[in-house]
């Protein structure tokens, strides 16, 4: 198998040719950009690179070992593979190109008309690769990810008790902000008091699935 620099060279060569042939005359090319591989890294038996072209900027994953090449060959084209990288989980799509063999790609930009120069595209590509290996961006670390922090905040702000108390009682709550009123949840002897917990990452003491399933009403199975 080719080492990382050789793989990068081959990748550039293949996509330069695609640029000159199949992409010739396609109207959404950015004429300021050219094909260039930015920052190749070895990762998990693969070469991981950012590929800049006048029509996309992608993460590209190429097998670097015989075992990986065999594993890639077994994947159906067009299917999606989830990879865990330091910055989170990313979905790659399996592709194939005659001179390149199987590869996987994850789109960052396409079209790339907003890039004013090759230098800008190169900077963005390098920054993307760097960020990809930045574990502090991982939503599982609890440091980032709006959807998560958003939901975690609402755990504190959401108060079933308030809405249960009276229909008009919650009327003045600002729907877009969870930081309104925080009445205590009523103690519930049967239900786990999930509503009182803060960030989801501090939830080690969640009841087991079985406990949750049997803690309250007995399931009425088989009726549907």
């Amino acid at each position: 198998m080719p080492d990382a620099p050789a793989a990068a060279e081959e990748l550039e060569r293949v996509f330069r040719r695609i640029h000159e042939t199949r992409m010739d005359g396609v109207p959404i090319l950015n004429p300021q950009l050219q094909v260039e591989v930015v920052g190749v890294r070895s990762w998990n038996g693969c070469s991981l690179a950012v590929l800049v072209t006048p029509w996309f900027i992608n993460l590209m994953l190429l097998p670097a070992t015989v075992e990986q090449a065999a594993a890639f060959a077994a994947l159906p084209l067009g299917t999606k593979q989830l990879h865990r990288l330091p910055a989170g989980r990313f979905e790659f799509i399996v592709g194939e190109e005659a001179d390149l063999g199987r590869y996987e790609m994850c789109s960052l930009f396409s079209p790339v008309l907003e890039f004013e120069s090759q230098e800008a595209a190169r900077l963005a590509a390098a920054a993307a690769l760097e960020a990809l290996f930045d574990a502090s961006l991982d939503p599982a670390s609890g440091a980032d990810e709006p959807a998560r922090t958003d939901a975690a905040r609402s755990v504190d702000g959401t108060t079933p008790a308030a809405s249960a108390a009276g229909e008009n009682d919650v009327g003045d709550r600002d729907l877009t902000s969870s930081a309104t009123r925080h009445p205590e949840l009523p103690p519930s002897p049967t239900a786990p008091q999930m509503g009182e917990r803060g960030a989801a990452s501090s939830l080690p003491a969640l009841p087991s699935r079985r406990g949750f399933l049997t803690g309250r009403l007995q399931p009425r199975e088989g009726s549907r």
Partner: protein
Amino acid sequence: MTEIETFYDVLRRQGISRRSFLKFCSLTAASLGLAPELAPQMAYALETKPRTPVLWLHGLECTCCSEAFIRSAHPLASDVILSMISLDYDDTIMAAAGHQAEAIVDEIVEKYKGNYILACEGNPPLNEDGMYCIIGGKPYLDQLKKAASNCKAIISWGSCASWGCVQAARPNPTQAVPIHKVIRDKPIIKVPGCPPIPEVMTAVITYIATFEKLPELDRQGRPKMFYSQRIHDKCYRRPHFDAGQFVEAWDDDSARKGYCLYKMGCKGPTTYNACSTTRWNGGVSFPIQSGHGCIGCSEDGFWDNGGFYNRLTNIHQFGIEANADDIGKTAAGVVGAAVAAHAAVSALKRARDKGGNA
């Protein structure tokens, strides 16, 4: 309507098992991009909170949003989805009719003041004092304004309510306008698409019912978890686009090989929606998978953006900067190092898998 049951009460009454209920919660949490730990959270809320009263109004529309919604393919299927919310008025599926039905609107507006969700399907025409859409002898605009007066938030279902859609296409003889052009003092969440994806509609409702607030919206008012990426970004035919392998004519050899449909007019590169990830009919397929390009039905003004089969030549005509939330702010061009780094990190975050995080 003296006491509103919880969602869970209704499920139990309908014989849904607790196991199915919990499965629904975890799948919905995952589709919302929430951590798996929040599924029990969702279950707890749906068990204990009274259902959210919903007024579902229809203006100028084709009812495809309702059709999609009742076909939501979640494990708890169509009849149960409707139980999630206390659907007090929806002229397509309610039993009441005539004066009795219209009285429901008045009752909810007063009784649940500030506490109900207004779901709008379709939009109001303003021309001729609203005479192009009459409900119960009055212009729809009147009903809409009345219903909106006391609601706590509005969901604009579909492209009609969100953007205007076909009835607002040039020359727009009835002067149909989207909801946010006539109601300006309420939070509005747009769920565009013609129709929107059923699972997206269900997830949005579940989120609001669980957390009593709107999910995170982009600058255009769409929920980020479903509208932050384009069809093109996650299309399974994307490697063919990258490799310059295009269908050149219908049913040519490339079409049979499943090449990219860009040259056949696919609007995937400019369309923000979840079709290429969530897909349709319970995840079975989506237009591109069936061999036809995306027509961009969830984009603003898609009827006026040229023919379905016209090749996209100028991405700017579709206002890509206006759509891309993070890139948009840096718009015009990426030049400096700081801007490039910001754009890169934003792109990575958008590309990151949204399905919970295991």
